[in-house]
Each structure stands twice: as C-alpha cells, then as structure tokens.
C-alpha cells in the first residue's frame, strides 16, 4: 500500500484542501441574496463577484448544492433552437461552456460529440430545415443531413426503426456536447466562494419582505436578513417563491424522468434525439447510456419515478438500437420542470423592485447555466434587463409577445 495513502488514513486532520469554506451564521445584511444553490444561482454569484466586484452575496440553498435540476438533467449542451432570441442566448452559453473547465481549473468532462435530431416524418424534416436555416443565419453550425450521413456516424442505428417510422433525415449540430452536470455547480460554487460569496446549504427561505413594492429582506429557517436585491433561481420550486412576493406566472410544474443503463465500452459517439419517439440518448464518459423522454403529462410536485417511463423509453430506444435488448437499466430518477406556455424561460426584472427572477426553465435549463448566470448577474448588478434576455421578461405574456420554442425545446411535439 502506498505510504502516503496510509499516512493520510491515519492522520487526524484532513491534509487535502476543502472545496468550499463552511460559512458562519447568516449575516444581518447582504447586497444580494440568491435563492437557489443550483447551477444558475451559483453561476450568478460567480459572475457578480468576478465581473462586478459584488461579493457581499449569500446563496441560500434549502438542500445541498446542485440537488435540484442541476443534478438531475441528461447533461446535453446545444444551441440549435428555433427562434433567433433562443439561438442567440444558447449560443452564448455554449461558447462559455467551451472554456469553463480551464476557467474553473476543474474537469467538467466537457465532450463535444455532435448532436442529431432525427426526423421521422415530412413535417418533422420541415421543422429541422427551419431550425437549420435560423441557426446558420445566427452563425451557429447546423446542417440538414441524410440517412447515409447518419448511418456513417452511428453505424449501430436501425434507420428504419423496425419499419414503423423510418428516419428520413436529421438536423446535425456539430457543437452539441455533454458534460458532468454536478461539476458545473461545484465549479461555479467554488469560484464564487473563493471570491467572497457565501453559500448556505440546508437554509430554507420562508418569506420575502416587501414594502411599497420594494424588496427589503428575506426570512429563512436560520434567521432573517436585510437586503434590497433578491434573485430567485429555484426552477421547479419557483411557485413557492413567486407566491411570497405576490407575483402570478404561467408556470406549471411537471416531473421529468431520466435513467442510465449499465456501463458499456464506448460505442455511441453522437448525441441522438428523436422527437417522434420522445427520446434522447448519449453515452457518458463512464460508458452508461444517459436517457430521457418527454415530461410526465400532468402536474406533480414530486420526484418519484414510474415503471411506465422506463418501459416506454426502453421500447422506443430498442426501435433505434435493437442490439441493446440485453442491456439493463441501472438507475432512474426524476426532477421538477417548471414549464411555460412558449417553452422559453422567464428571466429578468419584475414589477417588484429588487426582485429578479430566473425561472421557467422546463426541460431546457442545464445548457443555459453559463448564459443565465452571466445575464442575470448583469441584470442584478445594473438593475436593468441584460440585452440578451429582454425577450424573456415575465411581462411578455401580458403583451402577447411569446417566444415560441416548442419545436426545439421539447422532445415530443
């Protein structure tokens, strides 16, 4: 046994550096309070500290950091959306992701794989063509490809899908990537913490004090803090927080399930999405297939898993990859998706002064983590919506100016 390892086992103090400093009790006052210690909240804290020198910040997380959507997604990063506003936003995020491991000095296992959205019908192919043209116009790399191209990149695929719904083409997006999702929260968290922001886990927000339509403080189970700026970044728990400030939103929360298979030797390089079969699959650096499908079709605030999800997803996956019939599902879980009517997020200022919202992330939140952090930090620091997120303001519904991303954000359409 290596001598160093033995010495470590017998030592009384931890000689290895801790990733985060343990904060003391909540202070009486903070310049900014961020509710939600997931990727988005921690990214906002990071950019607030790094780019604006705003370090008197507390991130309040009711559980452990990254325990919400950040730790439950299927880790796909792409910018091949349908609207110009969406493409611009997600492209910003992809570009930030590409250098993030180096910036954090933490391996995020960021792996560019190429992303296929399969079209099984003429109308689907028409949508893929539409998305390709919008992407190209916005300077994002996307190409419409045929069956031969798909077969060359994914030799194991059954293009005819058991003769039921043959693949006729696909939207191919070379920058499509996957990453170690939890590490994104840790990287942003450590970076924010290093620069002075405090991260308080096991701290539940129980109320927000508003006087004359202005935020004056936050009540938690660990005490009350005074602040004039609150950023809510809690995704599937958003309705709890918006109720505290009396805001009405279109958000409805549905569970979104996912699963992984047992590990295999690397065979799937690309990320595969099929809108018709409602599934997306990629092979992680651990060799597991990471798979997801469409939302559970009813409102539920619970992260329970069901058998019908695993059965349905497996059945459709076997239509694409019949050779997987002996492979076992290792683990399944669920997260809460805060859905909006136009499948675009809700970001920016609100009619409550000092209350900023980062929500409505549905099934499209993880890939947005860096761009959300950066634009929300700018918005909170300047008390003005960052240019990129103006179209996503909560007020758009009152003006009927929805940003319709269903064709690109949702798997089933």
């Amino acid at each position: 046994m290596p001598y160093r390892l033995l010495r470590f086992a017998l030592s009384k103090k931890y000689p290895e550096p801790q990733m985060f400093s343990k904060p003391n009790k909540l202070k009486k006052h903070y310049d900014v309070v961020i509710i939600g210690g997931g990727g988005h909240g921690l990214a906002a804290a990071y950019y607030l500290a790094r780019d604006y020198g705003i370090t008197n910040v507390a991130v309040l997380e009711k559980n452990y950091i990254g325990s919400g959507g950040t730790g439950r997604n299927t880790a796909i990063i792409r910018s091949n959306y349908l609207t110009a506003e969406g493409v611009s936003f997600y492209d910003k995020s992809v570009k930030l992701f590409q250098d993030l491991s180096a910036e954090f000095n933490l391996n995020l296992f960021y792996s560019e794989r190429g992303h296929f959205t399969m079209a099984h019908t003429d109308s689907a192919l028409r949508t893929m063509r539409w998305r390709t043209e919008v992407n190209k116009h916005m300077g994002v790399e996307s190409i419409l490809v045929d069956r031969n191209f798909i077969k060359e990149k994914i030799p194991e695929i059954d293009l005819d899908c058991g003769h039921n719904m043959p693949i006729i083409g696909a939207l191919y997006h070379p920058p499509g990537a996957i990453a170690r999702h939890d590490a994104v929260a840790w990287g942003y968290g450590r970076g924010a913490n290093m620069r002075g922001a405090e991260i308080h886990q096991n701290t539940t927000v129980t109320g927000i004090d508003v006087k004359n339509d202005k935020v004056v403080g936050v009540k938690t189970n660990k005490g009350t803090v005074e602040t004039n700026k609150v950023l809510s970044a809690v995704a599937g728990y958003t309705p709890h927080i918006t109720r505290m400030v009396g805001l009405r939103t279109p958000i409805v929360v549905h569970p979104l399930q996912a699963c992984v298979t047992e590990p295999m030797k690397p065979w799937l390089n690309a990320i595969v999405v099929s809108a018709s079969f409602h599934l997306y699959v990629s092979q992680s650096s651990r060799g597991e297939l990471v798979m997801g499908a469409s939302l559970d079709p009813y409102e539920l605030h619970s992260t329970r898993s069901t058998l019908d999800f695993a059965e349905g997803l497996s059945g459709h996956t076997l239509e694409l990859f019949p050779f997987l019939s002996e492979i076992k599902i290792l683990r399944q879980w669920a997260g809460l998706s805060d859905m909006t009517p136009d499948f675009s997020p809700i970001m920016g200022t609100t009619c409550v002064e000092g209350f900023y919202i980062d929500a409505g992330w549905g099934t499209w939140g993880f890939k947005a983590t860096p761009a959300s952090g950066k634009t929300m930090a700018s918005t909170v620091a300047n008390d003005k919506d960052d240019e990129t997120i103006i179209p996503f303001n909560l007020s758009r519904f009152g003006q009927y100016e929805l940003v319709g991303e269903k064709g690109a954000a949702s798997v089933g359409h």
Partner: protein
Amino acid sequence: MPEPDKVSDEVWADYVFNRAGEPGIKREWWYHLSSGTWFIAEHDTVKDIFIKTYLHQHMKEDE
C-alpha cells in the same frame, strides 16, 4: 371567466396564461381515451393521490 370583449388585454392575458402553480389540490380536466369521456379529477399534486372524480357536467359553476 372574464368576458374577453369587456376586459383589458392585460386582464385577459392574466386569465389565459397565469396559473396557480403552487403544489396543492387541483381540479384537473382528464380525458379517457377509449370511451372519449371528459371528466374532472381532484388531484393532490404533492402526494399524487386522486381525491374525487366526477363527470364534467356535475362540476358546480361557482366553485
């Protein structure tokens, strides 16, 4: 339901888009595929339990 011709655009937008999103017991519209029946279910959206179901014709208007 507000009358679309009589209220402002903002009031109508609030009715069309905004929801009571917090967890709780919700009255939901469900459709039974094989019989084509629409019915109402009172659904506990935290415990995932159905408390009551009834045909939509039996729903009280003023509730």
